[in-house]
């Protein structure tokens, strides 16, 4: 019998929880832990022992209280297929929708606002698989979820869903903080910039951008202004127009397509902004380049 099919509890009350497993492994098991895609949004906690895994082709050595966060399409396992001695616990959430090309929607059970779920999805997409070192809090949360499920006390379904939300929020916050620890703002900003470029067509808000850097939106706006000379939204528009300039002169795409690709909601809005920034309308600019 494969270890991988050992759900401890029946999860029929929680369709969105695919697995909740605590695994104590007293002996080295050969051929039980191959690298594979396990599906679902998975959070793995190392509880005891030392594990050497390949996570998306990268070698990691994991120690107790390390937490691994994986998207449904990520693969991991032992490079030698071996499950080492120790114990671990993992939780696999089945989101209603989450694919590399699709935004994250957890499902009706979650109380996290839809926009924040999307942001969470984008963060996971760009930064997962990630290993959060020495993050005991998450391991404790998993334990609490397990206890709730086991004891099935009054309103435990509600409580479990709340704990799931707390778990995800904790991970996202830790993620932006771990990213920024011992780093100066320019580095954090560079990372945000990369994220913005990767999804220029998303209607970014200042709150979303601030969350990526792990700051509140007031402090974030202030920092961005003093560092870059632009307000956060103006900086974003700057990147959008720079990309549009490239597309105008290097492609034959229509103005509307370029506008939508670079995050403007209409070609009118695009034209006004473009003219305000560059002194030319997009059409004039395109002609100028091909004279």
């Amino acid at each position, binding site marked *: 019998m494969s270890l991988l099919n050992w759900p401890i509890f029946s999860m029929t009350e929680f369709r969105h929880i695919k697995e909740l497993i605590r695994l104590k492994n007293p002996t080295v098991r050969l051929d039980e832990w191959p690298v594979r895609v396990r599906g679902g949004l998975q959070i793995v906690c190392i509880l005891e022992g030392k594990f050497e895994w390949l996570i998306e082709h990268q070698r990691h050595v994991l120690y107790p209280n390390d937490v691994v966060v994986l998207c449904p399409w990520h693969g991991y396992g032992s490079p030698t297929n071996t499950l080492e001695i120790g114990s671990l616990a993992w939780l696999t959430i089945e989101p209603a929708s989450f694919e590399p090309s699709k935004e994250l929607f957890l499902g009706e059970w979650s109380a996290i606002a839809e926009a924040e779920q999307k942001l969470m999805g984008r963060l996971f997409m760009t930064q997962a698989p990630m290993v959060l070192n020495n993050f005991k809090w998450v391991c404790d949360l998993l334990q609490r979820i397990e206890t709730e499920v086991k004891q099935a006390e009054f309103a435990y379904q509600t409580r479990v869903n709340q704990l799931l939300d707390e778990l995800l929020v904790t991970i996202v916050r830790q993620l932006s903080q771990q990213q920024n620890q*011992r780093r100066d703002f320019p580095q954090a900003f560079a990372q945000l910039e990369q994220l913005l470029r990767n999804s220029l067509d998303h209607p970014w808000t200042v709150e979303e951008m601030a969350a990526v850097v792990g700051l509140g939106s007031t402090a974030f706006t202030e*920092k961005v202004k003093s560092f870059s*000379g632009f307000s956060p939204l103006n900086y974003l528009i*700057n990147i959008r127009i*720079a990309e549009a300039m490239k597309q105008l002169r*290097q492609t034959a795409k229509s103005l509307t397509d370029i506008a939508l690709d670079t995050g403007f909601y209409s070609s009118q809005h695009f034209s006004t902004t473009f003219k305000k*920034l560059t*002194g030319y309308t997009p059409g004039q600019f395109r002609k100028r*380049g091909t004279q």
Partner: protein
Amino acid sequence: MDCIVTIDIGTTKVKVSAFDQAANLIGWRQGTYPTFHPQPNYSEQDPEQIFLTVLYALKSLLNDELTKKHKPVALVFGASMHSVLPIDKQGVPLRNAVIWADNRGRDEANALKNSDECRLIYEQTGTPVHPMSPLIKIRWFRTHTPATWFEKVYKFISIKEYIIYQLTGQLVVDQSIASSTGLFNIHTHQWEERALNYAGIQPHQLSELVPIDYSELKLKKEYVRLFRLTSAAKLIIGASDGCFATLGAGVVTEGDATITIGSSGAMRVAGKQVIKDPKQRFFNYLLNEGTYISGGPTNNGGVVFEWFVQQFGASGIHLDLEYTVNQLLIEAERVPAGAGGMLFLPYLLGERAPLWNANARGAYIGVNITHERRHFIRATVEGIIYEMHSIGKLLQQYRSIQNLYINGTYATLPLFAQVLSDVFGKKVYVNDKHDSASAGAALLALTHLGVYPDLEAAAKTIRSVESYQPNPVNHERYARFTEIFDRLSQKLAEDFDALVALQ
């Protein structure tokens, strides 16, 4: 009252400043842009984003209240050296700009190094053969891109030329920026055939050469409107940021030197003659016809101290580098000169002058059981300055240097300034113009407008506001450290190579 607007297109940001007729700063704006590293040795920037940032900063300064009182009469441009941007016949960039920090041409540079060809090119062009040099970058394009692509390149220009082209429709390059390309003959002031042959291009694939006070540029009418200028406002092409920084520090004749420590660093002198170093360790760039700015650049300036701060600075303080830097410097001030006999080689990023060894690496040496964190902080500061001294020591074989003028974020921090003074044994001055690259640009414009008779007179108006005296006891002690430092930098070369092979 009239004002001068300077546009300094740097590596991380553009800074647009307004100066009055007496070269006093009256206002400024800035905007940043990123550097991309699509591969480990690559450093690129998006020319359109830089252009937009220039427009944004200019517009925001020129549409400000300030320009109601001060009418802008001239705009003058400074910029980082060594960038390469291939454009097609329509002036459209064929890819991102490759900037000075890009090392993709390492193999090309190594292959040319130590040859007679290399010596001849260096003697004629004044730019050390190194991957930073456009000479090497264009050669790289020639050998690493399909012939069909290379043929599409109408011209290889710099970021500064692109910005000016966007604003005016004219493709011209000032002799100062040109003199840092490795393609320009600093004696005849023409493109150098030998270098062009090596790179694999013809003179018509480069912009037309003009002097730094060239002012025949005409701003497109859309931008005259956007910036709310009058068509009488002049556009002056300007020089490179390095040359402007030297002028803006008040150094245009022999006798003094400038030391800049920002993220990287450089020590520069000015003179009527080039420095002919047989080992090709110094650059000789052109400020204007008749004035050479010579010196050596180091990769390992403030960026090394910032690395230390990020790794070993107090934790728990979020995202506030400046605060942590100051805390650490307070700790370091309590340690006597010499960091208790510990010495630091700062070569975290390999090194340009004076070693020109990309494989050089960092080291703390002489560590004993009594050393504490504060000794490491002090040793890190001192190591960065020992490296500057090793450039200065060689420069002094060619030029006598009386006074040092310092600028850049790190050089002007009190501890750095005092250690500089002690290590060199010279008086160190901090000028009233903090941003000497912009000040230099303003001085050029004011000279062009007739406010000063020449650049020498303009440079004399720069005043020092602070000075540091060398402590003779510390100087003597530091002399023993710099001796060991220079010896170790040479001696460890073989081991640096061996370690790099393992990295």
